[in-house]
C-alpha cells in the first residue's frame, strides 16, 4: 500500500468516525503570516473518536515560502481494545521506544499488555522525508521494546531498533530505560542508548528529583557521543567517542504563592573544555490562575570559545474582552563575538485575542543578530476551532 493510499484510508476513517457522533469531529484551522520565512502557513487539524476505542487524528499544512511545500505532519488511525490491553496505530506519527530517539515514520505500531505487568511494543515503517513528492528509496526502520511496569507511572524496559537505507545498515541501537516513583516525593528517570553498529555508548541521561511542599530539587546528568548519533553510513562516525557531558542541579522554590524562583547550577564538558552552566529564573503570576504573569531569567551558557551571557524577560497581561498583551525581550552577549556584534538583542510585542472559538494575534519582532544588523518583522495569526472541546 502506498503512503497516499494509506492517507486516503485514514482520511476516510476520520469522516466515518466523526459521523458516528460518539465524539464529534473536532477541527481547527490556523493561518500564520509573517514577513520572515515562512511567509505564510495554513495548518488544518482534525480528530475524532468512536466509542473511545477507535480514533483518528490528522494535521496537514501548506506554506507559501519557496521551501515550504504542502505536507502531512500527523495522519494516524488508532484503535485499542475495551480493556486497553492491546492498542495499535497506523499512518504517519512519531514513534518512540524507550531510550531510543523518536523518529517520525509512515508505518504501524502496536502495544500489548501482558500478565505480570509486562508490556511489549513495537513499530515498523519508513522514516519520513519532508515533501509529499520527494522520491522514496528502500529505507525502513523497525524496533521493539519489552518493559515491566512498576507502580503508577514507572517502568523499566529494554528496546532495540534497526534502520536501513537502501538496504545498508544505517543504525542499530539498544536502549535501556527506567522510571520510578519512589514514594510520593522522589522520582528517578534514566536512559541509556548503545550504538551496536559502531559499538559505543551513544547517549545517557539520568535525572532524580525530590519534592517538598515548596521546594523541588533535581539532579541531572547527561552524556552524548555525537559520532554515535549519526547514521552508520556517514564517514564521520569513524572518529571515535568524544562525549559532551553535562551535570547539575535545579532547585524550584515556591517563594510565595504566586512567585516561583528556579536556580539551575551545573557544568558541561566538551572534549577538553569545561565550563559552568548557570541559570536563574523567577516567575510571578499576577493572578491566581496565572493568566497574567511576568518572568525574568539570567543565564551563563556555552563552553570554550562559545560561551555567552544572556538576560530575558517576558510578560503576559490578560485584558478585558478576551484580549491579552504579551512582550518578550532578550539580550545576549557572546564572550567572543568574532566580529559579529557585541550584543544580540531580540524583542517581541504581541496583542492576542481568544474567545474560545476564534483566535487572533498580531506581533512585531525586532532583532539585531550576527546575520542582520537590524531586522523588524510583523507576524499575524488567525485561528478557528470547530466541534466540542
Amino acid at each position, binding site marked *: 500500500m502506498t503512503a497516499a493510499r494509506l492517507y486516503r484510508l485514514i482520511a476516510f476513517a476520520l469522516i466515518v468516525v466523526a459521523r458516528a457522533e460518539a465524539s464529534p469531529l473536532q477541527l481547527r484551522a490556523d493561518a*500564520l503570516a509573517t514577513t520572515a520565512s515562512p511567509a505564510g*502557513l495554513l495548518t488544518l*487539524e482534525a480528530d475524532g473518536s468512536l466509542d473511545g476505542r477507535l480514533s483518528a487524528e490528522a*494535521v496537514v499544512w501548506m506554506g507559501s515560502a519557496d*521551501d515550504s511545500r504542502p505536507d*502531512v505532519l*500527523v495522519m494516524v488511525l488508532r484503535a485499542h481494545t475495551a*480493556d486497553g490491553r492491546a492498542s495499535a496505530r497506523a499512518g504517519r*506519527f*512519531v514513534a518512540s521506544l*524507550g531510550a531510543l530517539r523518536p523518529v*517520525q515514520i509512515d508505518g504501524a505500531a502496536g502495544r500489548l*499488555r501482558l500478565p505480570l*505487568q509486562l*508490556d511489549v511494543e513495537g513499530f515498523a515503517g519508513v*522514516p519520513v522525508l519532508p515533501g509529499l513528492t520527494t522520491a522514496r528509496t528502500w529505507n525502513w526502520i523497525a524496533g521493539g521494546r519489552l518493559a515491566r511496569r512498576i507502580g*503508577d*507511572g*514507572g517502568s*523499566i524496559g529494554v528496546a532495540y531498533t534497526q534502520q536501513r537505507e537502501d538496504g*545498508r*545498515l544505517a543504525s542499530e541501537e539498544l536502549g535501556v530505560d527506567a*522510571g520510578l516513583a519512589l514514594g510520593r516525593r522522589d*522520582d528517578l*528517570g534514566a536512559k541509556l542508548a548503545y550504538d551496536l553498529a*559502531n559499538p559505543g555508548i551513544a547517549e545517557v*541521561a*539520568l*535525572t532524580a528529583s525530590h519534592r517538598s511542599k515548596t521546594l*523541588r530539587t533535581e539532579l*541531572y546528568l547527561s552524556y*552524548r557521543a555525537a559520532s554515535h548519533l549519526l547514521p552508520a553510513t*556517514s*564517514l*564521520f*562516525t569513524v572518529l571515535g567517542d*568524544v562525549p*559532551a557531558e553535562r551535570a547539575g542541579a*535545579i532547585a*524550584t522554590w515556591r517563594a510565595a504563592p*504566586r*512567585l516561583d524562583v528556579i536556580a539551575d547550577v551545573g557544568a558541561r564538558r*566538551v*572534549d577538553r573544555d569545561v*565550563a559552568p552552566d548557570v541559570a536563574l529564573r523567577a516567575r*510571578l503570576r499576577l493572578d491566581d490562575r496565572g493568566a497574567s504573569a511576568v*518572568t525574568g531569567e539570567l543565564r551563563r551558557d556555552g563552553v570554550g570559545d*562559545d560561551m*555567552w551571557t*544572556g538576560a530575558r524577560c517576558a510578560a*503576559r497581561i490578560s485584558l478585558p474582552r478576551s484580549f491579552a498583551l504579551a512582550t518578550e525581550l*532578550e539580550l*545576549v552577549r*557572546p564572550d567572543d563575538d568574532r566580529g559579529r556584534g557585541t550584543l*544580540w538583542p531580540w524583542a*517581541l510585542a504581541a496583542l492576542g485575542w481568544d474567545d474560545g472559538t476564534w483566535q487572533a494575534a498580531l506581533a512585531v519582532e525586532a*532583532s539585531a543578530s*550576527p*546575520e542582520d544588523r537590524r531586522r523588524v518583522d510583523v507576524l499575524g495569526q488567525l485561528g478557528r476551532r470547530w466541534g466540542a*472541546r
Partner: protein
Amino acid sequence: MKRRALVIGCLALGACAGVLGLSRSTPPSFPHRAHATAGVTCTRCHTGVEATPAALHIPDDAACTACHTKPHDARPCLTCHAAPGAIAQLTEAREHLVFDHKQHGPVTRGDCMRCHVGIAEGDDQLRPPMATCFRCHDKARDARQCDTCHKNLEDTRLLPQSHLAHDGDWMREHGTRAAASGDLCQSCHQERFCADCHGKTAPALPAQRRFANPFTASVHRAGFTSRHSLEARSEPGACTTCHAPDRCIACHMSRGIAGDGRRSPHPAGWVGLSVSDNEHGRQARRDPAACASCHDGAGQSLCVGCHKVGGVGGNPHPAGWSSKLPLTAMPCRMCHPIGSRP
C-alpha cells in the same frame, strides 16, 4: 544601615504582599475539620449528595442557619467561609470528572472520610487525590485508561502531582521521563504534541506558531537564530536529536550564508601539514555532526582524499576503534578499497 535596609525590605514585602499572594485578605478555607470533630455528619450539610449525583452538593445558607441561627452578615455564608476559587474548582471538577456519589455510597458504607481523607489534616481541597481512586480502580490505572474517570483531560490542563510533574527544566527532562513512561504521556498528549517538535515535516515550532504567548515551552525560544551556532557547538549531537545532519547546510544555502563553494567558513590553520596546523581533526572528533552537516554525502570525498589507506592524512580512527560493518560496506570502502589492508 543594615536596620534601614531591613525596614525597607519589610516595607517592600508588605507592599507587594498582595501581588505575591501573601495577603491574608482572602478568606480562609471552610473549617471542615472543626465541623467533623464537633460531631456534624457530612450529609447533614451536604444533603442529597447520594440522590443527586450531578449536583455540586455545596450547602446553601439554609444548611448553615439550621445551626448558626444568628448570621452575623447579610451576604451568603460561603462568600467569606470558603477558599477563593474553591467553588470554581469544584465546578470544573464536576465538568471534567466521570463520577457518581450514588455508586460510591454503598461501597464505602456511607463513610465519606474513606475517600475524603484530607479532612483530617484540614486541607483546602477535599477532593481525593488520584491515588485514592486507584486503591479500588487499579485496572483503569494499569490500562492507562484516563477516560474512565476524566473527560476532556487535555482541556483541564491537569498535571500529575508527583511522578512526571512538569516542573523545573521540563524541556530538558521530558525525554528522560518519557523514555520509561511514553504510554503515560499519551494519556494526555495527542500525536501532534510530539510531532510538533520531533516531526521532520513540522512547518514551524510551537513557539513560532503561538508567538502571542511567551510562556509556551520551546527549545528554540526568543532570539535562538542568533544563538544557535553557540548552542550547537556547546552541545555536540543535540541538534541531531531532531534534525537530519544536512539541515544546517540546507538552511545556510537558502539564506546565502554558506555552501556556495566560493568561501570557507573555517579559520586559518584549519588544515595543514603539521600537527599544530590541523585544528580540523580536533574539531571533527569533538563534533562530527557539525562536519556532516556540510560535508556529508559527496562532501566526504574531501576527507577521503587525505585520510584513505596510504593517504597523507593518516589514520582517523582512535585507538581501540571497532565496527561491526564489513570493509566492503559504506562508509568503510571509501577509504579501504578492496584489496587494501584494514
